[in-house]
Structures are given as structure tokens and as C-alpha cells.
């Protein structure tokens, strides 16, 4: 892969980000509700005080001027102050981002670790009870709404069985000095096994909720592409060479079958970002998703703007990563 291609990709980001910013800005402007009113609530203030606050937040300008100002500032890396936190938006986001990254990664790993073996097995044992069970389960997995499934899991494991915590990322006693800001890794690096287990017990339910639809889709994709590959001449030829069944499946079939799986996984990882908002809200997970939901409620425009930009960048980058993985799996593709 060439540097030129990477630069081209990064250049493609510019129109995407501009478009996304404009749409988000427009939607926020059109949504009823005034951040100043929300912020003031029932407090009685003079009109003058209110005007001062409005000016302070930059809301006294007409929308198009606000947008231009936003772009000019954003281009310099300044995304403004969070109305609500009275801190730079990027600082607020940075403090919440690791929790979301950690949750998404665990969900992704869980999804891949179940979907690929299950999809392969279902294809190899086509029409067996296992194949049917995998198909039915993945149908459920795709159809169950995350908020509902999450609440069910909470009721079962946290309320009835009381084996897992209800909400949050870890108990107070599990705090460790951050290294990577990913709690599961930091606790291990600091040698705090108790804290690691605590973090694990907190992350398991939200990660399962978040990863389930993805696992379901990936299982189906892997099964379908594996079935297709198993019918290919090169699989027959590999058998004709007298290779072991494992080598035929794991080497000759799987590498080719994973190509569609990788593509779909990249797209689905993008959609984890949306799922995060629901799951983090249900499980009280202190991540970016919940922050964005809260910010929308209080019309915290600058934070929503910046967060959506981060989502867009992540999405484009994930697709780029999928393209890179493609070349590894399929030598016919050159970036």
C-alpha cells in the first residue's frame, strides 16, 4: 500500500467532514429548544444577563455566521467550550472516549470470536442441528432491540441473580492510575487482578448487548461466504492434494471466506458507534455515547458537533482499515 493512497484517503475525509458538520449544524438549528433557556431553567435573570450569556455562548449570531465561525475555529483545532461543562469540548470528549473505545473493542472481540467459528461450523455442518441453531439465534440477535435486550440482561444477572453489577465502569476501589486509559489493560499492567475482575464484571453485560447484533450478522455473513468458498475448485484441489481437513478448511477456505466478513465487520463497527448511545445509556456507562445523548437533551451544540465529527472520522478510518485488511487477505487487490 502506498503513501499516496493514504493521503488520498485523508483528503477524502475533508468533504465528508464538511458535509457532516453542515447537516448536524442544520439539525441542531432546526430542533426546537434553546440552550440558554434550558441552562437557566427556573432561575430569574434580567434580560441583560440573558443577553450576556447568549453572547458568551456565541448564540447571538445568526446560524450561518455561527457555522462559518465554527468551521474557522474547528480548522484550527478549536471546537469551543462545552456549554454545560464550562470546559473545552475536546477535553470533555477526551475524558469520556476511552470508556467507549474499550466497550466497543470488547464488543468487537466478542462478536468476532463467536461469529467466525460459529459461521464456519454452521457452513461445514450445513443443515445440521448446529447450523439451524446458529441461524435461528442469529435471527434473534439481529432482531432484538439493544435497549430491550440490555434491560433483560440487567434484570436477570444484576437484579435477580445479583452476580453482575447494575451500572458503571468499575467500583471506586478499582481505580488505578491510568496508562492506556483502557481499564481492563491498565488494571492488568498495574497488577491489580481484583480491579481487573471488577472491570470485567462491569463491562460484560454492555459488551454482550452491544456485540450481539454484530455477532449475529457476522455469523450469517461468514456462513454464507464459507459455503460459497467450500464449493470452489481450489478447495476440491486442496483435498486432491491430500491435505488434512483442518488445513483445507483453515488455510484454503477460511482466508478467502473472511473477505466479506472483514468488510461487514468494518461497517458494523461503525454502527457500534450508534449502538453505544443506547447501550451506554442503559448501563450507565461513562462513555462518549451517553455524553452525546445527554448533550443533545440540553442542546449542548459544540459538544454534539465535535462528537459527530469524531464519529465520522472513525467511520471513514474503519473503512480504510478494512481496505488494508482486504489486501492482506486477497493479493489480487492492490491499493
Amino acid at each position, binding site marked *: 500500500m502506498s503513501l499516496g493512497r493514504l493521503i488520498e484517503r485523508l483528503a477524502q475525509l475533508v468533504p465528508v467532514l464538511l458535509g457532516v458538520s453542515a447537516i448536524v449544524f442544520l439539525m441542531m438549528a432546526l430542533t426546537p429548544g434553546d440552550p440558554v433557556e434550558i441552562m437557566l431553567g427556573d432561575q430569574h435573570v434580567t434580560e441583560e444577563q440573558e443577553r450576556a450569556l447568549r453572547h458568551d455562548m456565541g448564540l447571538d449570531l445568526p446560524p450561518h455566521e455561527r457555522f462559518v465561525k465554527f468551521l474557522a475555529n474547528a480548522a484550527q483545532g478549536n471546537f469551543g467550550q462545552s456549554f454545560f461543562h464550562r470546559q473545552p469540548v475536546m477535553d470533555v470528549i477526551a475524558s469520556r472516549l476511552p470508556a467507549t473505545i474499550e466497550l466497543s473493542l470488547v464488543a468487537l472481540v466478542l462478536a468476532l470470536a463467536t461469529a467466525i467459528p460459529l459461521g464456519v461450523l454452521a457452513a461445514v455442518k450445513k443443515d445440521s442441528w448446529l447450523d439451524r441453531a446458529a441461524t435461528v439465534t442469529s435471527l434473534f440477535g439481529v432482531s432484538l432491540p439493544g435497549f430491550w435486550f440490555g434491560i433483560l440482561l440487567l434484570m436477570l444477572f444484576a437484579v435477580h441473580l445479583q452476580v453482575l453489577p447494575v451500572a458503571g465502569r468499575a467500583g471506586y476501589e478499582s481505580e488505578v492510575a491510568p496508562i492506556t486509559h483502557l481499564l481492563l489493560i491498565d488494571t492488568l499492567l498495574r497488577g491489580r487482578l481484583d480491579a481487573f475482575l471488577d472491570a470485567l464484571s462491569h463491562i460484560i453485560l454492555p459488551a454482550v448487548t452491544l456485540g450481539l447484533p454484530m455477532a449475529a450478522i457476522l455469523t450469517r455473513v461468514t456462513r454464507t461466504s464459507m459455503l460459497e468458498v467450500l464449493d*470452489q*475448485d481450489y478447495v*476440491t*484441489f486442496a483435498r486432491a492434494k*491430500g491435505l488434512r481437513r483442518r*488445513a483445507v478448511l483453515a488455510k484454503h477456505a477460511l*482466508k478467502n471466506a473472511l473477505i466479506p466478513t472483514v468488510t461487514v465487520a468494518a461497517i458494523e463497527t461503525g454502527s457500534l458507534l450508534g449502538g453505544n448511545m443506547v447501550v451506554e445509556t442503559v448501563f450507565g456507562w461513562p462513555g462518549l455515547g451517553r455524553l452525546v445523548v445527554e448533550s443533545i437533551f440540553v442542546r449542548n451544540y459544540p459538544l454534539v458537533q465535535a462528537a459527530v465529527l469524531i464519529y465520522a472520522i472513525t467511520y471513514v478510518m474503519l473503512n480504510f482499515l478494512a481496505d488494508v485488511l482486504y489486501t492482506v487477505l486477497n493479493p489480487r487487490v492492490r491499493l
Partner: protein
Amino acid sequence: MSAPPILSVRGLRTTFATRHGMVTAVDGVDLEVLPGECLGVVGESGCGKSVTFASVMGLVKPPGRIAGGSIRFLDQELTTLDEARFRALRGRDMAMTMQDALTALNPAYTVADQIMEVVLEHDASLDGSARQRRAQARARALEMMDLVGIPSAAKRLDDYPHQFSGGMRQRIMIAIALACRPRLLIADEPTTALDVTIQAQVLDLISTLRTELGMSVVLITHDLAVVAEHCDRVVVMYAGQVVETAPTRALIDAPEHPYTRGLLASIPRLSALDAPLDPIDGRVPDLVDLPPGCRFRERCTVAEARCTSEVPMVPLAGERAVRCVLAEGGR
């Protein structure tokens, strides 16, 4: 017949359970392959020639299965052989090439890797650490690529299949098949996917290597011209049965079965370019619902009433046999 055959198929039946009923794709096939010979197996698509040799290789895919008969290869009965031992034979003692090398070679691995893996799997003469064994297998891969005539083979070891031309890919597939010096090579339509000029090169290569390596070759084809040039003996198949078997020269000079005659007549000839082609009318019968008696009779120009009863293979002089009631009566 002097030396005992290395492959002997007797009464082989291979069936496929389909939605429309049981299809007997191979129905009582008898054939033999002698040491060092090239046997041509001829017939149109769906006549069971490929399925017969998929059965020999143990590569019949479900819902197909071997329903009866015997396959003896190098004094082992293959129909009852367990999969582990069968696997050890495949690629080592019996090898096959497929019709289209583009689809038979794995696009995701280099050609060196695909030659090496069969050597690493079967060759007991490799020794040393895993790394040394790989180095020896790689040397063998290079040797094989030279043998099948890949130009500047050393530079091309780490290329992927799509980087080669069609003819070169076919050669690489042959290199893979022959990497462990098998006793029997089954070449399934080795030239169908190739240009005419390349076809001749690939067939010549197979013939040369047969002599050099002292192996037997089964050439599965629908092209009698190919058979005439490269095979010692021919087996003609029709609708899952062997209908005629004979030494090549004898078969071409004096075909006994009306189907064989039809096949020969339908070859376009340079000497008679103006003459219209003479195809065999009609279609292969539906294998699910076969009429009793001769399976060719509905397309046969000389069929008689007695063709509706079961026709056995009739041995004739000159080491040939034919499945036709008219054959002996005619002479």
C-alpha cells in the same frame, strides 16, 4: 495385458440423491489403467467420466456417494479405505489436475506455497527442523516449476496465480500434481480452458513427464483428437456407462459402437472444410428416468427392436469390448 493394472475399477456405481430422484451418474463402470500407459476417457458432458475419477480420488461431494463396486489402486481397496489412509494416497500416489487452473489454484497464496504444502504433507525424505524442511520443499517447488517449463522460475516462486497466464497456470497445477512423483495422474479436461496453441504445449508436457516420471495418466476429455494423439487406449462413456474400450488406433480406425462412430464423425476435418458438420442428433437421456436397454438407442441411427433389452459389454478380439448388440453381428 502383461503387467497387472495399477488401477482397476469394477462395477462402480456412484449415485446422487437429488430433488428429482436418485441419479446414478456412474452405473457399473469397469476400467483399468496399466502401469505407464495413457488412458483416454471420452464422452460428452454429464456422461460420468469426471464423477468416475472423483470416485477414484475419494472426492465425490455429498449428496453424491459411491453406492457399489470396487476400486483397487496399488493393491488397496479404496471404497472401504479409511479417510486418513486415503488422504495419504492423494497427492502422493495419485494426483489430479482440474479443468481450470484459475479456479483450482487458491488466489490467496503464492504458487511456491501451493507447491510446497503438498511436498511438506507427503514427502518422507524431508528431514531436519521445520525451517530446513521448508527450505527443502521450496527447492522442490523451484525444481518442479523448472520441470514444467515456467520461464525464470526462481523469480516467480512468490508470485500469485493471477500473475500468470492461463497456460502457465495450467503448468503450475501440473507441477503441484506431480510434486510427489505420483504413480497415477488424473488429468480432468486439462486443455478445455486453454487456447489451441497452448493446448498442444500442455498435452505434450504431460506426455513427456509421463515418460520421464514413469507414471500412468488418465486423460479425461471430450476431444477425440486429443485422445488420438496422446493416448494408448480409450474408454468411451455414455450416460454413466462404458460403451466401448479399445486401443486408440483400433478405435479410431474401426469404431464399433454407433456412439463412438458419431463422435468421430462430428470432428471437423481440415480435409473436408466444405462438408457440413455431422453432429449426433438428440440429447443425453435423463439419468433419473432411464429407459431399459441400450441408453444410446434413441439417438442411434441403426437401433433395432432388440436394443430395448439390457445390453452387456461384449469382449472382442484385439483387447477391445463394446456395449452394442449389433457389433458382433455386423462382422
